[in-house]
């Protein structure tokens, strides 16, 4: 057993704030959080109980910050957290937690377990315990601007492609535009139709917008791995691009974690409020809908449902906008039994998708989504997060389910009435 170095202990202690101490004080070990977590429900392994994922952090808190814990530690009656403990917990803190927030919704004591797992990851990184897959993504994000290593060249090629397809000019680095549209690497690399879709909708609605060559990536690996300093630097890149282009609003693309990173964590990471607004693309589209600037020419008749991205809905507060938008085009829309803030995660959020080691577990726990979808008999799942989309496609393929997964923005763009002369 290697006792944890004082530096590592301090890194954990730094994370313990009033809410964390209060949450640990309140926990009655009732186990209700287990049933909220798909890693437990799909494996029935008690080690995946959300609060258990925090045991090392809890023990450090107890021994350093409570009288009883201090007494036990001093008398040698309670064991200190060791480096081996942390190696063992690495899987629990990273591979089996998507930061989906479902546990935080059900704890009868009100413990925000997800908030604490996010914090525990900061300590894990400082103590040298983070999965290789995420570390790699982190290095790529710092060096190339994209966790997947997508370059500006690739983006430019996709822009040309989208311009040919739509016949519209896609603005890049247009100073003074109202909106700066960010993208996620997954969109640029795999779902590039989003660029054309946004261009057509914004053209039709007369929205002034631009992409930026300095900051096109919206996702933030720093948050997922738990490295606040690096996370802050990624946010600074976006702020500086937005400031130099003098935009009023920055749009987070169809990505849940990117939205939370930018909208809620960003100002706290850089330590100052933004001089611009942050909106998710579904919020912008919903605003256009309310202003009658989103004319629709025809409707979708296939049976479809919406997969709520955790970060967008449960951790982001955007339950209604995607539904209002889908109501414009969907004739045969059904909800999953647990939807909205109670929806089940796709299994790949919180950095799990970038952590290759976690893939078998992720596919196993996808059985929860499978059951939800099977119950509906849908042919199409719409979502508003490119990471969810990737994970859904992967999971559906793994379980041999023949179901389409599409993004919300493109779905709307497909039904956009481009002949309309506006409101």
């Amino acid at each position: 057993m290697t006792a944890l170095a004082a530096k590592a202990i301090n890194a954990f202690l730094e994370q313990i704030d009033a809410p964390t101490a209060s949450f640990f004080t309140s926990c009655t070990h009732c186990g209700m959080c287990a049933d909220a977590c798909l890693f437990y429900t799909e494996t029935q392994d008690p080690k995946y109980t959300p609060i258990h994922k925090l045991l090392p952090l809890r023990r450090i808190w107890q021994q350093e910050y409570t009288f009883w814990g201090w007494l036990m530690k001093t008398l040698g009656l309670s064991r200190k957290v060791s480096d081996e403990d942390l190696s063992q917990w690495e899987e629990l803190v990273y591979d089996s937690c998507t930061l989906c927030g479902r546990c935080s919704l059900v704890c009868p004591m009100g413990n925000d377990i997800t908030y604490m797992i996010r914090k525990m990851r900061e300590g894990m990184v400082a103590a040298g315990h983070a999965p290789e897959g995420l570390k790699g993504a982190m290095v790529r994000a710092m060096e190339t601007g994209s966790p997947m290593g997508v370059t500006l060249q690739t983006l430019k090629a996709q822009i040309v492609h989208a311009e040919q397809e739509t016949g519209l000019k896609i603005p890049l680095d247009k100073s003074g535009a109202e909106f700066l549209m960010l993208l996620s690497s997954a969109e640029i690399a795999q779902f590039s139709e989003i660029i054309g879709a946004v261009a057509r909708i914004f053209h039709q609605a007369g929205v002034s917008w631009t992409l930026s060559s300095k900051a096109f990536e919206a996702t933030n690996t720093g948050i997922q791995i738990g490295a606040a300093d690096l996370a802050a630097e990624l946010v600074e890149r976006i702020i500086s691009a937005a400031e130099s282009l003098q935009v009023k609003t920055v749009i987070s693309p169809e990505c849940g974690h990117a939205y939370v990173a930018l909208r809620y964590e960003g100002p706290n990471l850089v330590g100052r409020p933004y001089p611009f607004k942050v909106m998710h693309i579904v919020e912008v589209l919903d605003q256009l809908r309310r202003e009658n600037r989103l004319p629709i020419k025809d409707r979708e008749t296939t049976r479809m449902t919406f997969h709520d991205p955790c970060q967008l809905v449960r951790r982001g507060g955007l339950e209604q906008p995607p539904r209002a938008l889908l109501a414009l085009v969907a004739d045969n829309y059904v909800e999953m039994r647990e939807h909205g803030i109670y929806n089940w995660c796709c299994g790949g959020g919180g950095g799990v998708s970038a952590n290759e080691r976690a893939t078998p577990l992720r596919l196993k726990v996808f059985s929860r989504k499978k059951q939800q979808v099977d119950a509906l008999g849908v042919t199409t799942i719409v979502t508003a997060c490119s990471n969810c989309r990737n994970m859904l496609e992967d999971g559906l393929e793994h379980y041999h389910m023949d179901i389409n997964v599409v993004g919300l923005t493109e779905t709307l763009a497909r039904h956009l009435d481009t002949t309309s002369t506006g409101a």
Partner: protein
Amino acid sequence: MTMSDLELLAWLRGPGLQWSLIIFIAGLIFRVAENLALGRTPDLATPRSPVFAAGLATVWRRSLFHPGMSYRGYFTLIAGYTFHLGLLITLFFLSQHIVMFRAILGFGWPALPPSIIDFCTLLSIAALITILIHRITDPVVRSISDYQDYLAWLLTLLPLATGFLAMHPLGMAYIQALTLHLMSVEVLLIAIPFTKLSHMASIFISRWYNGALAGVRGVKA
């Protein structure tokens, strides 16, 4: 019965009770203050909904059953409510307790008939026993339990059991049963601030933080 038995009882009813109450109240206040003193960095993100009210709403909302609860959830809430209600009714509505409250507070309130109190006490004890069985047999709950959970359970059970014994002395002198009851109550009072039983105060703060953190994001947690 010897003189020292009576002296012990007198001490337990006087300074013993006083001191344990002081430790209980001061300890709980200290515990909460100690947590709050850790503070948190002010949230710079523009909130979507009024944060303070969102916190209060969650303090209330988490008392309710909610959709998607599992068997474990129903068990926890039903057994938890039964135990707490039985305990609180016994504590506040047994006529002997009200006499004591009157002595401390200077005012009292009507008592409930002894038969109802008996029923509540037994219900509370039964709930506690079920909770213990659940803790030992449920794989999830057992795996996350530590010795404090069992200690806290015992410390909570004893005042209920000895109190019931004092009301229905079974081959035991009333004085002795009452002495045991007072002892167990005082041990419990002193233990609360130092153990997980301090959730009785921190629960409100935890729920408020949860609701407030979600309120920034416009989520009803």
